[in-house]
């Protein structure tokens, strides 16, 4: 099936056209599932969130007027579903760790301690795949409020302004969370390079 444009999708959803749901899944399903998986960290939770997101997003699509707003709107629906799921499981202490635990040693004193230079990474191949996998694990471990920002902005490629719009935050708040999340991930990759693995937070 050839991919439908957002404009075509909106019309099809409004008119209950046969094939509209499949076209919607074809166009956005993979990204929404990957987003949910990164946010939830568990396939079972991601599956629930994905199902709810697909249904809510597709049925709500008909009310959307601007084809240009589809992508940010979909992520708003998906992010809300993920955060609602997260809130309903807030009592589980095994999920997520605080950003304090991810700070590099000496951060508060402006003292960089882990200064290993691993920036010269392999261009491709298995080692780079391992680094991506380590980073995916590190993303899952971020606190939800930071994770959602870094996934939207850096993984999904939304602009800072779009990310702020999706999350109902002000741009400076997005920038602050984004930077802290990035620094935490950088620190986790440093630990991975040092042989500790990204999940070995003290």
């Amino acid at each position, binding site marked *: 099936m050839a991919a439908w444009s957002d404009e075509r999708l909106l019309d099809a959803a409004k008119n209950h056209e046969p094939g509209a749901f499949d076209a919607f899944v074809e166009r956005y399903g*993979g990204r929404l*599932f*990957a987003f949910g998986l990164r946010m939830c960290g568990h396939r079972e939770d991601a*599956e629930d969130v994905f199902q709810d997101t*697909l249904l809510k997003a597709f049925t709500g699509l008909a009310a959307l007027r601007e084809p240009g707003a589809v992508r940010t709107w979909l992520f708003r629906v998906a992010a809300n579903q993920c955060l609602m799921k997260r809130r309903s499981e807030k009592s589980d202490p095994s999920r997520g760790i605080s950003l304090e635990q991810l700070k590099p040693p000496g951060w508060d004193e402006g003292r960089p301690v882990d200064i290993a230079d*691993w*920036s010269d990474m392999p261009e491709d191949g298995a080692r780079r795949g391992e680094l991506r996998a380590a980073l995916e694990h590190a993303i899952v471990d971020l606190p939800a409020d930071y994770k959602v920002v*870094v996934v939207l902005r850096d993984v999904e490629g939304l602009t800072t302004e779009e990310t702020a719009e999706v999350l109902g935050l002000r741009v400076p708040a997005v920038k602050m969370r984004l930077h802290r999340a990035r*620094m935490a991930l950088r620190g986790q*990759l440093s630990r991975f390079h040092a042989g500790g693995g990204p999940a070995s937070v003290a």
Partner: protein
Amino acid sequence: MSQGSDFDGLSREDRIALCQEVMENLSELVEGTAPADFCEKVETMLGSCQPYLVYKDTLAATLDLLKECGGNSDTVTRSGAESYARGVARAREALMKRRKEEKE
């Protein structure tokens, strides 16, 4: 922190304050969106500082990998193919049920 630059002429407190400011704005320095005068100040003070360069380069490498993760979402989805398929099927079923109820 630096090697014989203006940085060494600063008091300890000022060095710490500058390092903290740099660390808090490293994303903008890496992405080139920091104010020009701040970029210039950092370049003058820390342009040859190894720890600063390492932090900056490894953060840039982290951003590159994050972007790659985005391009790799199909692989992530494939890794959970069964969950994906079940999620689609359940959503489709719920949609059909809703449409049927609407008609009735």
